């Protein structure tokens, strides 16, 4: 047993570093540092994504035959960590990490040919339509109705919390195709183009001042049945596959560690001798080390072909908390600078401050937005319910 990187791993790391140094466009890191929303604007990331695409690295975790890199889990971990340090971010996880793997697993050849290349290249930008006003944690109660009419479904209903629906040109969604039987057995997974007639998007302003979330209304939207992924009424299975892939297959340690290093930098820059803040910083560090060790154990399991098991809910739960604690400490570290509020977005376009003061402007919005980490993508309460069964055996 050991934690050693092999010489191939080290060579790979150097290659990644070289690539990042060469490919990150000027201004991208600043724009990401001043992004207060969850998701960095596609405009900021598209050039870098295209560079990744040219290098063949835009979807590393996909099977090689669909454009994946065939990297080992350790290599993916290295790549994520280095991207974090270099100030890079994922272009469109809804495409590359959510719907992409679903299409690869469940899609027809036509669907694969149509959608996968455009995810790889960044030509498509995807949104996810799962939650509804009455269906959050209890997702299976969703009501958006799809009724077959010839070779189309006619869809009526509403989605909510649809991140970047206003920027996406495509959207995958769960819709109800049957109202009898078990609720989970009447759900179907369907792909939409955002310009289909009858789709309207209404913004929801976040408390942090960002516009990320939307309501999406479906009014007699006609979507071809050929846009269905998997069988009718089997959408719940597809959604579960997506969640498992997402939770078990992605290693957050790199990204969070990069954020943590930035927090350390901030605290040093502020010359902090506040012992309470330093205690919190150290506690976050030990939390992060422990969680990274758990992440690495998952990597090791994946590397050797195993199934990481119920740990995925634990990772979601704890990583979201650690990310919150980083955002919270960053806010507390700037003292009464946190009183200032800059309502315009994006900050990297609107701010008119000296460079050394800029990052202060991002801290409070980022803190406020961070509260959603433990809500979106499965609340901590739901993760805890799952863990009570799966990890504790209750």
């Amino acid at each position, binding site marked *: 047993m050991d934690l050693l990187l092999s010489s191939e791993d080290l060579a790979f790391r150097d290659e990644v570093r070289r690539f990042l140094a060469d490919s990150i466009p000027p201004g991208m890191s600043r724009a990401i540092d001043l992004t207060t929303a969850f998701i960095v604007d596609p405009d900021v990331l598209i050039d870098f994504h295209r560079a990744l695409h040219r290098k063949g690295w835009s979807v590393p975790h996909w099977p090689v035959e669909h454009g994946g890199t065939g990297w080992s889990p350790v290599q993916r971990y290295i790549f994520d960590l280095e991207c974090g340090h270099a100030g890079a971010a994922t272009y469109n996880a809804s495409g590359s990490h959510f719907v992409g793997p679903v299409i690869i697993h469940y899609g027809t050849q036509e669907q694969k040919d149509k959608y996968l290349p455009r995810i790889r290249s960044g030509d498509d930008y995807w949104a996810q339509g799962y*939650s509804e006003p*009455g269906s*959050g*944690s*209890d997702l299976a*109660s969703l009501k958006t109705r799809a009724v077959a009419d010839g070779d189309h479904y006619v869809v009526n209903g509403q989605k*909510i*919390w649809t991140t970047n629906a206003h920027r996406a040109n495509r959207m995958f969604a769960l819709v109800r195709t049957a109202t009898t039987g078990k609720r989970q057995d009447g759900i179907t997974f369907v792909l939409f183009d955002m310009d289909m007639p009858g789709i309207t998007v209404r913004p*929801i*302003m*976040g*408390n*942090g*001042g960002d516009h990320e*979330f939307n309501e999406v209304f479906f009014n007699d939207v006609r979507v071809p049945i050929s846009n269905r992924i998997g069988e009718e009424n089997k959408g719940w299975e597809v959604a579960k596959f997506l969640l498992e892939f997402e939770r078990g297959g992605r290693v957050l340690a790199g990204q969070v560690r990069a954020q943590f290093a930035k927090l350390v930098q901030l605290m040093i820059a502020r010359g902090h001798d*506040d012992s*309470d*803040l330093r205690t919190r910083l150290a506690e976050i560090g030990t939390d992060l080390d422990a969680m990274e060790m758990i992440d690495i154990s998952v990597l090791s399991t994946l590397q050797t072909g195993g199934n990481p098991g119920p740990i995925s809910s634990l990772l979601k739960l704890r990583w979201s908390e650690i990310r919150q604690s980083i955002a919270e400490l960053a806010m507390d570290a700037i*003292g*009464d600078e*946190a*009183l*200032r*509020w*800059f*309502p315009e977005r994006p900050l990297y376009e609107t701010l008119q401050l000296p460079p050394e003061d800029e990052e202060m402007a991002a801290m*409070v919005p980022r803190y*406020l*937005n961070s*509260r*959603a980490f*433990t*809500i*979106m993508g499965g*609340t*901590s*309460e739901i993760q*805890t319910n799952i863990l009570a069964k799966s990890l504790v055996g209750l």
Partner: protein
Amino acid sequence: MDLRYATEHVILRESAERFLAERYDYRTVQRIAASETGWDREVWGEFAKLGWLGLPFAPEDGGNGGGTVELAILMEAFGKHLVIEPYLATVVLGGGLIAALGSTAERQAMLPAVMEGECQLAFAHEERDVPTRAQRTNDGYSLRGGKKVVLGGPSADTLLVSARLGDHGLGIFVVPRKTHGLTVRSYRMVDGRRAADVDLNDAMVPTSALLGGNEDAGGAVEAVLQRAIAALSADAVGAIGAIVKATVDYAKTRVQFGQPIANFQALQHRMVRIKIKEEEARAAALFATLSLDGPAAIRARATSGAKAKIGRCARSVHQEAIQLHGAIGTTDELALGGYAKRLLAYELLFGSTREHLRRYGAMIADPKVAGTGLLMA
């Protein structure tokens, strides 16, 4: 010892509640916050008509002679309704300084305009860097320094500026907005209120600008700041109470898995915890309010204690309230978002939660103080 609210207290609470419920909903807050000035002239006029702008001033100055409890009641209503007009800056801080330090002539010259809503004040006190100094000149003083977090600074017609006099003195200077050498750099605060950085670049004021001619205003400044902390703590308690109620109400109506989420025991226990924090915060604010007429040591302990305790409660309550609301709690659609930001501002104004906890800790690091109960001789 008597903790019963008197009839006039109940009447004040109800009338404040009635007015604000009618006139000041969350859309109004958002509208005013997004406006150029961050306050509403009409609302301010109503405050004057209701007598609120004269609430704490002595009857001989034309005020209503309200005590600390009345002020706390009004502030709690302001917190509950997220009122962002610069009441604290003008009435409690600025007006409070004039009432405490001003001569009869000064009080009569300045307070009526405040009470009529014609004049707003701000207290420029926190130093950005080195202490602001007042240098005596032939016909007055020259002020030099930099102030920060000047609440209500952007809308103030007159600033009250604290400045060192000689080696040990401290004076409060009445500085009209237009004074040459005075720069007010405004900004919007996280909760929509306005504040400013203030630069004094050899700002010249006449000898009469020294409030009350008092060169030893340190004690009065401390007392006014303690009043402001107690008032702001009542405001925070108003916000905490509202946020807890909103969360419980939401949990009772939000249905998931076929039942209101308020039925889930894990959530019930967490709602109990935030409700208890509300009760504790309310108690800490009440102690601060009632301490204001007591000796200096008790005032300092009670106000720093309140800031430390309520700040801690506020943080965890706003976080839990958002979490218990779920996704809707992270938006600006509900007043919840406004409360969270109001409470963040509370945590930082007049010294942070941690700073006051440290001060409190230093005070009780004496078994005699630590062993003294709250009832006062």
